[in-house]
């Protein structure tokens, strides 16, 4: 993957610095940071240095002090933004696992899956798959950062889920690979990050939130809360999307990806809520608010994406 297209003054300056390695990053730190989309693509690229990187950026820049400093500054602003969007959630009652499932169940947001099941056109579904590919081609990677930051109980619980996500040792069953096969069979590009220039700010925020939580140890509670909400809102929507793809005659490989998630995420939601969040909160009850922050962020960012997408589609 090459460095994405710049979306404003900050990303223009940053991507230039990443490619050309100037001695000083003055232009980057002087750049205006008021454009949300510009800031999010810059942050996404900084995170990407820690995943698979860019062909036109020296790998040595992963831990460049200026890149780290900028990432830290942008992350601080982004975390404040995410926290400012949190609803006032009443304190969750015991048992925590049932309260967490109820919090997700009571959330009523616009549903991309229902739209895909009943109304979406083939072109609209292909558009959705391009947006989802930014995450699904690195599926489960952001929360993998959390593993070495956990004590034995929650670490083993998280790995029990991650092992399944990563195909139980069989690359043919690795979820990101299943999605790539579905993309190929649907006539879409399968290279990692291929559609980054097409995605709206809502998708960048969804991806950046997962990296923010995964790459900052102090936010481990939020990372696991996000995982729980993500898994708990996946199985039934996956059935709806699989039904929509079948209705439109899309590739069976892509249908298979969603069908796998009906069954897998019926397991994963129980693990994420009960054994993963359950074990970390048993050890560190003080992380309760952070777990809820992760849950709410996941639900809120999907609402924002779904609203944007369905609003746009309804005017087509």
């Amino acid at each position: 993957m090459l460095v994405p297209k710049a979306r404003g003054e900050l990303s223009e300056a940053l991507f230039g610095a990443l490619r050309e390695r100037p001695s000083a990053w003055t232009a980057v730190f002087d750049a205006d940071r008021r454009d949300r989309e510009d800031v999010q693509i810059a942050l996404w690229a900084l995170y990407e240095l820690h995943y698979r990187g860019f062909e036109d950026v020296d790998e040595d820049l992963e831990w460049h002090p200026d890149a780290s400093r900028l990432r830290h500054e942008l992350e601080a602003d982004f975390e404040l933004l995410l926290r400012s969007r949190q609803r006032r959630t009443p304190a969750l009652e015991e048992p925590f696992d049932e309260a967490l499932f109820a919090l997700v169940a009571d959330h009523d947001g616009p549903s991309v899956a229902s739209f895909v099941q009943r109304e979406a056109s083939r072109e609209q579904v292909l558009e959705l798959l391009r947006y989802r590919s930014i995450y699904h081609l690195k599926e489960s990677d952001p929360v993998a950062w959390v593993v070495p930051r956990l004590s034995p109980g929650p670490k083993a619980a998280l790995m029990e889920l991650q092992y399944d996500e990563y195909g139980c040792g069989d690359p043919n069953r690795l979820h990101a690979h299943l999605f790539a096969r579905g993309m190929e069979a649907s006539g879409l590009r399968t290279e990692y990050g291929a559609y980054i220039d097409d995605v709206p700010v809502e998708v960048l925020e969804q991806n950046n939130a997962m990296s923010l939580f995964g790459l900052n140890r102090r936010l481990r509670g939020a990372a696991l809360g996000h995982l729980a909400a993500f898994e708990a809102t996946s199985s039934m929507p996956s059935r709806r999307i699989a039904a929509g793809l079948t209705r439109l005659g899309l590739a069976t490989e892509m249908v298979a990806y969603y069908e796998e998630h009906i069954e897998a995420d019926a397991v994963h939601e129980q693990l994420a809520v009960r054994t993963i969040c359950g074990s970390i909160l048993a050890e560190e009850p003080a992380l309760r608010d952070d777990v809820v922050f992760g849950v709410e962020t996941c639900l809120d960012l999907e609402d924002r994406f779904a609203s944007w997408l369905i609003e746009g589609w309804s005017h087509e």
Partner: protein
Amino acid sequence: MSEIGEFEHPDEIICPGGPLLIRGNHAVIDSDGIIHHTSRPVSAICRCGKSANLPWCDTTHKALPERLRP
């Protein structure tokens, strides 16, 4: 006495209102006598009876009124 304790790690977990989780490899016989083999580290067996993917859970229990949940 050792300070490194042993964790609880049951082979089966009953999820209130939801499925039964089973760890490891199992063969599950459904009501028609058909054998289904588990394929993942943990599997979720439907307990509400309404799954469209029996014997596995597909989270249909969440759409049921509380009195019909297992």
